[in-house]
């Protein structure tokens, strides 16, 4: 299940954000009549088609797998999480239908209809992510067993914003990195400069807004799920003026940190907005209810670290752009983008691990432990390895095809560019 989900969220996140970029490119093309934006939009549409196909099948697998792996969870809570899943099903349906029209219908439907289909894909993709995150919010802190109450569990506004932002952020940064990588090898590619110009604003805005959303989530956790907050920070002892530890290794027996940078009162401030406030520690909870603290904290540190790096980079990019009145270019910038680009997906995966590990040992916090939910099917390991292998192969194939796609586009662009070179120069 974990492996399937880990893959699925990458496909799903890109499936939410790529259509938005694709439509943006399309809109730029309609406005500027620049054929390169059209080419870009077509490229993005091809990428979307691969990711959506894989997302669609891995989503099917997940809907069954919930039952295959956790039949007792579904038997007891199927009712509570059914509504968001049913609505997600419709959103997904709409996405599939309009993606079909968008991908295969260029020239068969009117231009306005075509663009509207693209927008419908982007909107319903975001709606799917919205509904699925409601389920996660229920598992993290059930708002009640009544279907409506379960659908709007307390943490939903925080989680939904965080997840949606992360999808756009991860995808935009990945696109920034890919464009920069090609520009490094051939700085004259105008197509990829435009791709960079398309993705960079989205990357910067999301990178700056996301920390704010994270901060609101942390404050919500402090009040609603103090154990999870304590585990995120490996905060052992309840007390005031709690320090924030960055990096290092916590010792769970003593509550000491080895090699960490400590900011006095930092945790108190982040949790309550007050350097002297009391922050509940792990010692306030029975050990049997603790999540795997070291894993949760490590994942959290990775997420926050990657997020901070992107936010910082966004500030620098914006400062440079404002000062020079144009987007950054040149080797050093491109190298930096190539290094920074993968951080979006790194922090997305790390954030997902934080949620999943942070909820353990519960599958529905306070109501059902994961161990109680698991199937009695005796050969779970076989199914696990089977799905792992399938997903690994799928992952390899997707990366290979996307890379090939980008390379092919690069070559065809080069060819067309040489043919019309004089026209462009004029």
């Amino acid at each position, binding site marked *: 299940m974990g492996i399937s989900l880990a893959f699925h969220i990458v496909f799903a996140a890109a499936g939410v954000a790529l259509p938005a970029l694709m439509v943006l490119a399309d809109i730029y093309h309609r406005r500027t009549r620049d054929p390169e934006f059209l080419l870009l939009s077509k490229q993005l549409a*091809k990428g979307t*088609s*691969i990711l*959506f*196909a*894989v997302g*669609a*099948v*891995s*989503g*099917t*697998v997940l*809907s069954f797998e919930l*039952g*295959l792996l956790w*039949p*007792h969870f*579904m*038997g007891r*809570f*199927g009712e509570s*999480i*059914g*509504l968001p*899943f*049913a*609505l*997600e*099903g*419709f959103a*997904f*349906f*709409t996405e*599939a*239908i*309009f*993606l*079909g*029209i968008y991908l*295969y*219908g260029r020239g*068969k*439907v009117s231009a306005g209809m075509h663009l509207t289909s693209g927008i*419908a894909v982007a909107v319903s993709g975001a709606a799917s992510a919205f509904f699925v995150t409601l389920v996660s919010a229920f598992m993290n802190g059930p708002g009640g067993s*009544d*279907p409506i109450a379960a659908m709007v569990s307390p943490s939903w506004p925080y989680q939904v914003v965080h997840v949606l932002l992360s999808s756009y952020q991860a995808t935009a940064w990945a696109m920034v990195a890919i464009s920069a990588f090609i520009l490094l090898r051939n700085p004259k590619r105008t197509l990829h400069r435009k791709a960079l110009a398309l993705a960079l604003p989205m990357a910067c805005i999301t990178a700056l807004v996301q920390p704010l959303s994270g901060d609101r989530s942390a404050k919500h956790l402090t009040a609603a799920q103090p154990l999870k907050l304590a585990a995120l920070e490996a905060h052992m002892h309840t007390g005031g003026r709690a320090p924030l530890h960055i990096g290092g290794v916590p010792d769970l027996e003593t509550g000491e940190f080895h090699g960490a940078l400590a900011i006095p009162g930092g945790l108190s401030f982040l949790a309550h907005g007050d350097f002297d406030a009391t922050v509940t520690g792990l010692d306030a909870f029975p050990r049997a209810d603790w999540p795997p603290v070291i894993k949760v904290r490590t994942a959290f540190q990775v997420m926050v670290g990657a997020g901070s790096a992107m936010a910082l980079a966004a500030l620098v990019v914006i400062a440079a752009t404002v000062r020079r009145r144009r987007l950054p270019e040149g080797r050093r910038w491109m190298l930096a983008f190539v290094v920074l680009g993968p951080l979006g997906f790194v922090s997305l995966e790390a954030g997902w691990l934080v949620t999943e590990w942070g909820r353990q040992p519960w599958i529905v916090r306070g109501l059902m432990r994961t161990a109680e939910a698991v*199937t*009695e*099917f*005796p*050969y779970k390991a076989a*199914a696990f390895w*089977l*799905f792992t292998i*399938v997903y690994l192969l*799928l992952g390899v*194939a997707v990366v290979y*095809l996307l890379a*090939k*796609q980008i390379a092919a586009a690069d070559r065809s662009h080069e060819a067309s560019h040489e043919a019309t070179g004089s026209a462009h120069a004029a």
Partner: protein
Amino acid sequence: MPLELLLAGAMGVALCLYFLFGGADFGGGVWDLLASGPRAVDQRRAIAAAIGPVWEANHVWLILVVVLLFSGFPPAFAAISVALHVPLTLFLIGVVLRGSAFAFRALDPSTGQKRFGLLFSMASTIAPVLLGMIVGALVSGNIRVQGGLVTTGFFAAWLAPFPIAIGLFSLALCALLAATYLTVETTDEALREDFRVRALAAAVAVGLTALAAFLLAGGGAPWVRRALAARPWSWPFHLLTGGAAVTVMVALFTRRFRLARVAVAAQTALILLGWVLAQYPYLVVPDVTLHGSAASPRMQRLLLVALAAGVPVLVPSLWLLFRVFKRSYPSSSS
């Protein structure tokens, strides 16, 4: 009418649509695997063109069925997931490989066929067999559930002659659907003849596997056999289904392809209706009933509201999709 019947009805309709559309996509894969003769390449191309824009949307019907099952009838979903863990897992692998191989192949026409073509067509062939076996096991009466726990193990219920016969029947039906639809969707006369011959062969296979399943049902699925033979609706229903099947064959034989398409859809819908009626009131024969496993009435009402809200978005969108891509060609064009 009790709420759970409305929900079950919605599931039945979604399942029927899944079979009519998604089943035909699987069938397309079967004919891709069996593409032969001088026009093998053209056959594959026609199949890919027919499936391309619609297969993902067609596939979502299944997701809808699963979601309705687990939110409307949670204990039934739990029992089915445990008892049929193995065939469901294999079916899912088939779905994953079919879908991704198709998308990968479409992206890369030059080398894609060599790399992903066989994977696509093999997976398309195996998946409907497994789906049929799952249905066969559900109606066989060999899955026993006591106190929410499955007591009959993980293999015996579906690895038996009757479910296997249903699996082959389902495969033949998918192949028939695909070949019949393709006769309407191709513009090329010679290709159309190819698919016509294939559709006729598949129609014969449907008849033979149906007969085999009916004979095996005596021992393999006694409840359903009784229902199919001795209810007041049984014989009129068989006549109707048989009539549709004969219409399909005659229409194909006399090259009335649009009539064949309507008739084959009717035949499939009737077969699914027969299955649903024969199985009523059980979700898993003989221990899990619709009524006994239904979620709370409030949840059922909410689900129906969600369905009622979703359908007005869904139906016009689907209509648009099929109008854009599935306009049938006039038979005079060559």
